[in-house]
């Protein structure tokens, strides 16, 4: 038997009332002076005994009456199975716990933990609960369990927030997925969050939770928020050595409901404060500050912008990194200089390399016949374009150049001689040529596949519409990498390491003679990235946001440390690293030191809130009934059970009978 309102069982104490009254009255009988008690003493003992029995019987009846009334009010339910349902229809419950950065504002996390405790406290015996913590991405913390002690131990152990942004959709999807395997029909997702508007983009390809999955919202955000935030830092990832002072733009905004109008921004480079600048937001919603610094020396610089003026410090500091690179000197050996610019590889190649106003390259060109050792003194990369033949001394110069760390980009063409080419460059280039690719009239080849993880291609678009009328079939050497293939699966670009240097071999020409590649958008970045690769320059981006998966450059993949010098673990097989804290990180390998910076998402600093009804309407599946409060569903279930059993009816009937019995006996009994 279980009781729906067990507190009323306290009323069982009232069963002692008749006894108490009896004892109190018995303790202090009034004294009456009487002429003689001789007629009292003659009273029959049996009569007195009978009267006493009647008195005790009355006492028992009255106590029993109180007992039954207390039990009736406590609403007993028979059938042990009901005990499982006494807290309502059992639920499969997924709690989505917002651990994003904004939850560290004020007492939001403490309130969330309190709400979490309340959820655990109200968990029914048959309920099961799973916990998903989320920021940008969801994380399953606890799978479905009904073990309240286990849940409490694991759920309430974590009181930390993250620096992540907020995205409800992945969390909702994961919760919906978890509920597919839930034990109960009654499925509920509870979202505990501060409900920033940025966390919820209304449309997610029409996705909705499955029908029957309900959503409850627990808002732990502050109604009034005052906050200053760095919304954006515009600093270049790469700066060429010797350029004009670098400009760093900072966008600052008061993002709370209570505006903050003044503050001071500080600018640091490599930990040294370079400038402080006050700002005023009295008349504008945001201020844009410009800091300038002369980054003249090659190397990596890490900077920091910090604000003072509010109490939410998490978003008051943001860091950035800048790589100052020297210009790359490129020597072009043009095998077919031509007056017709469209038929001149050197023209197209030079146009791609040096045409931009701030090109990172410095290009010089010599005819292949004039090339000698002296041309390589200040050169970083040599481009060999459609050269028919080179002297052995020229070949030796190139070999030495590459062995000592130089880079060679070789593009084939119509001047390439099948017989002598392989002899000249055997063992130096990443492959040999086999034959001219044969194509029917009107047919062509396209670039169909490439190594997307290779530094050359990692930052390039996937759009390669160039068509090639002719090409050379290549045979890669054993140590060569095929970086790009034609749609015939024949290699288009080969790479190999030779000594300290690198060589690239492109299977077709770089002008319009064999295709339209120079006219495509991908031509220029392809050449830039190829030359940078050959020079050993990193194209590794230096600025990230929390949650980004950072593919670390293989050449720096030895040691990753944070600004304190603590070494960090990362997946060395891929190798990738997902930062969880903002700041500057350092990659240290082969005496090269490179840094990158991670900052928090500006969206997390915007405390504009979203109405939960918008989320509900967008996420809950069509046809799902609105959720009933736990109390309401419990009350309904209890009502059903009670109406079926009607125990209270029998108890009240018994009470009434006892009442009349008491009346009957009391009327026959002298008090």
């Amino acid at each position: 038997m279980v009781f729906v309102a067990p507190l009323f069982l306290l009323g069982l104490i009232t069963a002692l009332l008749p006894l108490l009254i009896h004892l109190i009255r018995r303790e202090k009988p009034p004294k009456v002076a009487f002429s003689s008690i001789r007629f009292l003493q003659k009273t029959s003992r049996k009569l007195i005994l009978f009267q006493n029995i009647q008195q005790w019987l009355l006492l028992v009846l009255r106590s029993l009456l109180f007992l039954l009334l207390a039990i009736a009010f406590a609403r007993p339910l028979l059938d042990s199975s009901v005990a499982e349902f006494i807290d309502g229809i059992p639920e499969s419950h997924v709690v989505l716990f917002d651990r994003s950065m904004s939850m560290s504002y004020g007492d939001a996390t403490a309130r969330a933990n309190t709400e979490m405790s309340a959820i655990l406290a109200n968990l029914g015996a048959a309920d099961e609960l799973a916990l998903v913590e989320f920021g940008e991405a969801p994380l399953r913390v606890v799978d479905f369990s009904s073990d309240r002690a286990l849940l409490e131990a694991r759920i309430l152990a974590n009181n930390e927030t993250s620096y992540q942004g907020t995205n409800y959709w992945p969390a909702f999807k994961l919760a919906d997925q978890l509920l597919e395997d839930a034990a109960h029909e009654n499925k509920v997702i509870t979202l505990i969050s501060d409900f920033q508007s940025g966390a919820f983009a209304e449309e997610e390809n029409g996705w909705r939770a499955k029908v029957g999955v309900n959503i409850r919202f627990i808002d732990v955000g502050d109604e009034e928020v005052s906050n200053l935030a760095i919304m954006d830092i515009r600093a270049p990832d790469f700066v060429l050595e010797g350029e004009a002072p670098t400009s760093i733009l900072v966008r600052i905004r008061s993002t709370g409901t209570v505006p903050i109008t003044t503050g001071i921004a500080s600018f640091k480079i490599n930990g040294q404060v370079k400038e402080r600048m006050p700002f005023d937001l009295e008349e504008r919603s945001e201020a844009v500050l410009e800091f300038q610094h002369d980054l003249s020396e090659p190397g990596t610089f890490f900077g920091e912008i910090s604000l003072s003026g509010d109490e939410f410090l998490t978003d008051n500091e943001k860091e950035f990194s800048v790589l100052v690179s020297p210009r790359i000197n490129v020597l072009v050996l043009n095998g077919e200089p031509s007056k017709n610019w469209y038929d001149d590889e050197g023209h197209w190649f030079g146009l791609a390399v040096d045409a931009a106003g701030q090109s990172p390259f410095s290009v010089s060109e010599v005819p292949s016949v004039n090339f000698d050792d002296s041309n390589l003194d200040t050169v970083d990369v040599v481009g060999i374009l459609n050269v028919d033949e080179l002297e052995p001394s020229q070949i030796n110069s190139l070999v030495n150049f590459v062995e000592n760390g130089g880079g060679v980009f070789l593009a084939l063409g119509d001047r390439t001689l099948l017989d002598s080419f392989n002899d000249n460059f055997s063992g130096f280039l990443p492959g040999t040529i086999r034959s001219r690719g044969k194509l029917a009239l009107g047919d062509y080849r396209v670039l169909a596949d490439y190594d997307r993880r290779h530094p050359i291609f990692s930052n390039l678009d996937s759009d390669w519409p160039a068509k090639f009328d002719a090409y050379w079939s290549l045979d890669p050497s054993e140590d060569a990498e095929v970086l790009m293939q034609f749609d015939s699966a024949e290699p288009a670009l080969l790479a190999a390491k030779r000594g300290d240097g690198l060589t690239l071999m492109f299977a077709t020409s770089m002008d319009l003679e064999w295709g339209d590649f120079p006219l495509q958008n991908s031509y220029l970045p392809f050449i830039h990235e190829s030359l940078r690769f050959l020079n050993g320059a990193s194209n590794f981006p230096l600025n990230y946001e929390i949650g980004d998966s950072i593919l670390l450059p293989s050449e720096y993949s030895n040691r990753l440390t944070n600004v304190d010098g603590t070494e960090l673990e990362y997946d060395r097989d891929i190798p990738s690293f997902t930062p969880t804290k903002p700041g500057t990180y350092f990659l240290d390998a082969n005496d090269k030191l490179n840094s990158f910076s991670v900052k928090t998402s500006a969206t997390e600093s915007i405390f504009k809130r979203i109405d939960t009804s918008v989320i509900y309407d967008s996420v809950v599946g069509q046809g799902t009934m609105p959720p009933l409060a736990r109390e309401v569903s419990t009350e309904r279930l209890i009502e059903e059970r009670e109406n079926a059993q009607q125990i209270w009816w029998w108890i009240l009937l018994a009470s009434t009978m006892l009442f009349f019995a008491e009346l009957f006996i009391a009327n026959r009994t002298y008090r």
Partner: protein
Amino acid sequence: MSESLNFLDPSVLSGLDNLELRARVVVEGFLSGLHKSPKRGFSVEFNDYRHYQRGDDLRHVDWKLYGRTDKLFIKQYEDETNVRATIVLDTSASMAFGSESGSKLTYGITLASALAYFVTRQRDAVGLVTFDDRVLEFLPPQSRQPHLMRILRTLSAVTPGAATDATKPLGDLAATLNKRSMVIFISDLLDDEERVISTLRNLRAMGNDVIVLHLLDNAELHFPFNDSSEFIDMETSESYLANPNAIRGAYLDNLNAFLSDCKKKCQRSDIDYCLLNTSEPLDSALSTYMARRAKGG
């Protein structure tokens, strides 16, 4: 009639401090109502005839005069005998009990005073004995007016005494009675009634007229208590914890058996017995005395 009865009401009488006045009010009030009663229509002194009234004893009809006049007259005699009445008043502790209109002792004192006054008014001799377990005061019967005042003073000084033991005082009284007397015994009889009545029987056997005026309070007669109480015996100080409602029936049965026994034993011994409820007027007590007096006692 109602006015006279009002003056005989114990609650009215208890408002009179002066015992003589109280006795006079009782007697005068009693006598003033007496002539209206056909049963009480003759005096102890003969002076004339009077018309027969319904209810008169036919033994007192003058049949000769009826023969001459064809009318019924009652022949009234002058009592030439002198009565010596001794009032024996129980002043034991139990007599102090009273619930509504005063205690049994107060009632008994008033009654004794009224009887003394009444007897003296008839020019008879009256004496007084007060006792509890022994004789406290003894005034031999005399018919003079100053004696009445002594009796009244004695009665006004009476206070409740110890436990009741009437045997010895009555025995002592019997020893002093050398002439035929009337003994008016006023008591609640809460004693060993067997022995008391036996002693009274001896007095009766000695030729004395004995009247027992048995005083009981209304609460003793009806036991109107409700709450469970500890009843304390006023004479022995014993206590008895009881639920009155539970034992009322048994109590009343026991009491009635006691009263019935007393009455039966008195009647068997030719002793006049009159049970008096102290909440009721005193006239029934006086009537009992007069009836006994009329019998020629």
